[in-house]
């Protein structure tokens, strides 16, 4: 029906190709984002190197890009960088995973018992308000100087955040959807698995981003205090020797680790949340 009407009737004139399009969507021509980013990095390092060579900035206190590159090369060639980065990566990843699991599951489970939730809430808030890094010396005493203490520190930082986020997300599950399912005869358990868990998932995943940072903090602080390995250990030892270039190698390596872990969360998010409306206001012309 619609096909025949479009071909047979006179209808509105088709827009001619040559007609000038009104300047609605004419964005200013900007370089690609990656190029702008690269430019910023190059400029920063160039300025730093230049300032050090001119003597405006002390190479002793600030290091230099060329010195940092040399230090990085030495650590790569000796294989040390890989050993330390690997140690930090796995300790913080393990802390992140364990912390997320032992935080998220009880956080969601609190949905089951409003009474239990009311009882424990002030305790959770109290624990959350303590700077968890203050536990670091205790954790080292309890778990020793090995990798377990780094994982434990990362867990102590991430678990409470994951718990509070999961609990809040569970509480925010749409009450009307729950009512609708109840009217269809759903049990509490079905409401939990079919509404509470899926609707909390986006919040739980966005907490991953915060917790990746916390997991790295926990591990690195553990390495500062007492360790034989890890990027935190590299930074700590190098700074006590005033080897600023090696300190920078440690810092940039941590940055790279953070990047890798964040990218992992992005992949997880895209896979798990295909249903979510990804529109965001930055796509519009305002």
């Amino acid at each position, binding site marked *: 029906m619609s096909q025949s009407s479009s071909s047979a009737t006179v209808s509105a004139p088709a827009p001619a190709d040559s007609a000038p399009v009104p300047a609605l969507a004419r964005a200013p021509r900007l370089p690609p984002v990656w190029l702008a980013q690269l430019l910023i990095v190059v400029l920063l390092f160039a300025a730093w190197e230049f300032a050090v060579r001119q003597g405006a900035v002390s190479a002793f206190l600030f290091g230099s890009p060329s010195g940092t590159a040399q230090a990085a090369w030495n650590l790569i060639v000796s294989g040390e960088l890989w050993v330390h980065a690997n140690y930090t990566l796995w300790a913080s990843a393990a802390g992140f995973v364990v912390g997320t699991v032992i935080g998220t599951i009880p956080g969601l489970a609190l949905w089951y018992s409003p009474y239990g939730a009311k009882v424990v809430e002030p305790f959770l808030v109290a624990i959350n308000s303590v700077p968890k890094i203050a536990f670091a010396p205790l954790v080292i005493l309890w778990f020793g100087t090995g990798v377990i203490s780094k994982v434990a520190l990362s867990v102590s930082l991430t678990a409470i955040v994951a718990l509070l986020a999961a609990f809040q997300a569970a509480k925010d599950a*749409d009450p*009307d*959807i729950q*009512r*609708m*399912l*109840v*009217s*269809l*005869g*759903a049990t509490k358990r*079905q409401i939990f698995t*079919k*509404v509470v868990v*899926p*609707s909390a*998932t986006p919040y739980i995943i966005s907490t991953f981003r915060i917790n990746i940072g916390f997991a790295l903090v926990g591990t690195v602080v553990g390495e500062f205090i007492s360790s034989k390995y890890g990027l935190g250990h590299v930074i700590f030892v190098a700074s006590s020797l005033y080897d600023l270039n090696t300190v920078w190698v440690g810092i940039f390596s941590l940055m790279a680790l953070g990047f890798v872990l964040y990218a992992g969360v992005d992949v997880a998010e895209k896979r798990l949340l*295909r*249903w*979510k*409306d990804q529109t965001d206001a930055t796509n519009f012309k305002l």
Partner: protein
Amino acid sequence: MSVATPKLEIRNLSKRFHTPKGTVNVLDDISINAAAGEFVSIIGPSGCGKSTLFNILTGLLEHDSGTILLDGKPQTNLRGRVGYMLQRDLLMPWRTVLDNVLVGLELRGTPRAESVELAREYLHTFGLLPFQDSYPKALSGGMRQRAALARTLLPDPDILLLDEPFSALDYQTRLFLEGMLADTVTQKGKTVILVTHDIDEAIALSERIFVLSARPGRLKSEHRITLDTRSPLEARHDSRFSAYFDLLCQELDIQTAHA
């Protein structure tokens, strides 16, 4: 009235809420009924307790006194035996259209393989088959509400409770969905109770209309609507339509221009 047992009968139902400020009477001695396959509406001003009544029927609230009878047998509530549809479509955004429609049967433990075919039939009827694997975010408001209607009908409930299901839609979409609803429930022989603010919609769809008063909700009057057609669109052209409209406006104390 015929002597047959009504499909649903609510007798002398009352509900009070106890708040810190005192007791609020929400429903006061409400008695309504619906015959099998009948389409009845409840209209009333805001705060007349229409939604409370539905919450009681679905078992989300307990009533203080009164009886609910299904096929003449007393029930505490109708949980699991009613289809409940609200103004919000309540589609779960993390489920595809098909999975949303299937949820009622899934809760009962019906094997998916069995229910999928039936669900696809409904989706076909409602013109949603091409969207069965889409997420709700991709659908328009009218399509979403059609999916909600399919979800409500799929578990084959005895009674449909519709709480202003179309009031968030634009007029054309509403007319279209009203027609679709009327056709479907007539064909499947469903008993429907519609709660609405929209007098126009109530007359066009219903066989009987109950008017409730403002808080406390009391049954004010009951009207049998006799029109020559069950089509909501044609109903609006029926010569008796405007007379019903004026009558119900008066009942609700709405001033019409030529009253």
